[in-house]
């Protein structure tokens, strides 16, 4: 019996000598990286391998990247798709890159490009037992504006050039019990104009009131906080020509109905549009250039978009699955609604294209994603971001993003927003600043920080 075993063991040696592998080349275009620590994480099938090494970035110049490299062998295939993450953390401006690899790799070469990683903006304050429901980021002026519940209250950070260090944030409310901070800015309808107005809302600590204030891009004018006097509302800024500046959708406690109100920048109510539906959740609101309002909500029957204009009967369109968020396309003609459905036991992320006026169904695009049911999704005219469970056995959540073309269809490869793998990353928010740039903000649970990352759009100049 022993002899056949020896024979079988020796046959095993031959495959062991010809292991599958991938040659990973890490490319750096912008930074003057020299001798730096490179952190590598490889995971899939609930397994994780991490290692560090000191890299000497070689080559580069005349548009070519400097590079370092390593080899990963796969003695066994535990998952047909493997994630590889690379971080260079200990520099003045950390950088990160990621790729997904099909295994077996057959000795192929995989190029991973390093881009500036996310950076911490400030601590995000929240109660230990509560998860902050925040909307962190919006376009404003030539750059972005961020708002978050901070240790000092409610903070607002304005960044005309978000790639540079942000100016010190302003505390717009000293309420250190405020929560559910949201920021939204005026849509520009793809005109190339810069949003001139943003509205920040927050809920008071006793959940009885929502306050909001507007801030202007030139920063010389910030309105006084306006109390809505209600416990739950969503706020959006209207595009130019709508006839109002801000729209609120308020969920009334007494009968679970909704009332939509339009306001001027000082908070005065211009029009009130009740919506006689029994609402179980209020998801979002947006205003159109024609003065119409679209509300995303949930009822006992599921999620839906409802359009009101104050003159005709509301138009309702059910959205299959769990509608997570929506955005209006740059041209104002379409609504992009992101919903997570369950198909054959799998979570599927779908982007619904609807006519902004009639809410008629258009294309439904399935995103190549494995979204986490019930978790955060962000959609903007140029990018989509969602939450996925990290396949390293930790069960933690990552944020992934993918670019959208002019028709709102995802293209290219999705990548990871968070540079590190420590804990959960939640509440993605996106802002398409230009044809070359987008920015993403999100919450890092491991260190309770708000983080900001520059994203280079296809064909655009790389983030610095």
């Amino acid at each position, binding site marked *: 019996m022993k002899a056949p075993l020896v024979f079988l063991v020796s046959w095993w040696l031959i495959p062991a000598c010809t292991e599958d592998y991938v040659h990973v080349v890490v490319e750096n275009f912008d930074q003057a990286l020299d001798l730096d620590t490179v952190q590598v994480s490889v995971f899939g099938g609930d397994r994780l391998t991490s290692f560090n090494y000191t890299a000497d970035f070689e080559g580069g110049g005349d548009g070519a990247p400097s590079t370092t490299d390593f080899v990963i062998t796969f003695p066994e295939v535990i998952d047909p798709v493997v994630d590889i993450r690379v971080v260079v953390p200990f520099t003045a401006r950390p950088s990160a890159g990621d790729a997904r690899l099909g295994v077996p790799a057959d000795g192929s070469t995989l190029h991973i490009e390093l881009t500036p990683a996310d950076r911490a903006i400030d601590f995000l304050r929240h109660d230990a037992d509560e998860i902050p*429901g925040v909307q962190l980021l919006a376009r404003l002026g030539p750059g972005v504006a961020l708002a978050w519940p901070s240790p000092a209250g409610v903070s607002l950070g304005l960044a005309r050039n978000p790639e540079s260090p942000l100016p010190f944030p302003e505390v717009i409310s000293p309420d250190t019990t405020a929560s559910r901070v949201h920021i939204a800015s005026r849509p520009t309808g793809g005109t190339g104009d810069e949003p001139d107005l943003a509205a920040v809302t927050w809920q008071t600590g006793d959940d009885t009131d929502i306050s909001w204030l507007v801030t202007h891009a030139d920063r010389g004018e910030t309105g006084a906080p306006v109390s809505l006097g209600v416990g739950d509302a969503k706020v959006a800024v209207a595009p130019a020509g709508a006839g109002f500046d801000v729209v609120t959708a308020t969920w009334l*406690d007494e009968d679970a109905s909704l009332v939509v109100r339009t306001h001027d920048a000082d908070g005065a109510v211009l029009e009130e549009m009740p919506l006689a539906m029994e609402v179980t959740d209020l998801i979002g609101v947006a205003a159109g250039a024609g003065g119409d309002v679209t509300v995303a909500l949930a009822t006992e029957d*599921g999620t839906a978009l409802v359009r009101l204009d104050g003159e005709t009967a509301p138009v309702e369109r059910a959205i299959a699955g769990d509608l997570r968020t929506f955005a209006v396309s740059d041209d104002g003609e379409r609504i992009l609604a992101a919903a997570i459905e369950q198909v054959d036991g799998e979570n599927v992320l779908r982007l619904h294209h609807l006519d902004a006026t009639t809410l008629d169904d258009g294309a439904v695009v399935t995103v190549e994603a494995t979204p986490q049911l019930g978790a955060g999704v962000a959609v903007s005219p140029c990018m989509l971001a969602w939450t996925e469970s990290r396949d390293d056995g930790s*069960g933690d959540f990552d944020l992934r993003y993918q670019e959208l073309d002019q028709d709102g269809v995802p293209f290219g490869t999705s990548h990871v927003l968070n540079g590190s793998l420590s804990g959960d990353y939640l509440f993605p928010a996106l802002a398409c600043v230009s044809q070359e740039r987008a920015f993403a903000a999100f919450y890092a649970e491991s260190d309770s920080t708000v983080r900001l990352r520059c994203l280079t759009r296809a064909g655009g100049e790389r983030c610095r």
Partner: protein
Amino acid sequence: MGRAAALRGAIGLCALMAALILPVARPARAQGRPPIEAAQRAMEKGVAAVERGDHEAALLEFRRAQELVPGANVPHRFEARSLEALGRWAEAIAAYTRYLEIKPDVSDAAEVRAKIDELRAAHLEGLLDVVCQPDGARVFIDGNPSPAGVTPLRALRLPIGEHEVRVEAAGRHPLRAPAVIRGGASSVVAGELAPDAVRLRTGEMVSTTPDPARGPLDLTVASPARDEPEPTRPWYRRWYVWAGAAAVTVGVSVGAWVILSDRLPDTQGGTKSFP
């Protein structure tokens, strides 16, 4: 619990949780909002744990959601499904029962009640047949003074575990036997009750007693003949055939390793394996 079943149960989680939790939470709004978001988060983590097959971790999350929002029934149903997956049947039934107690008119109440019955029948109870002669003998279970029935007794439902069965009939010696009941299975106790007396030809009635005296049994086993010739071994049972094949294979392997080992690129970061 199958992945599909777990994920199917999670569809519309957010809307369902909002529908079920918020009506409970709303009256407390003036005193401060209950940690609904934390409960939702716990449920999301629980569902994620179910997806990766970690039902123990899922249970922790579902129970955390129960602590955060005691009035919500959905976490109990998810807890029950994970307990099912772990084979903790009694606990699963208890969790399903709590789910119904919190909201008796829930839309899937009938389905859940049927599930409770199914689990009980499949895992916590079994069936016993008692088939003994004569028919009509009384059957007692676990010393219960009231008979459970008479023979032939079919499909008596009992909790899982060991039970004592006693069968009695007039003029017969009682029969005692253990019965082990397994979940969802049938057990049988069969036998014949011996008469406690017999009538001889003389007409005399003689009492019968069990006869314990028996002589030793003579079990003589014939041993195989020792002088039979040993059968010829086939080639695949000859040690030198395999030793030679192993030597050739090792040689080929070493040669292949020498030839092929230098095909891995020489890199700055070296070579690491995954996993």
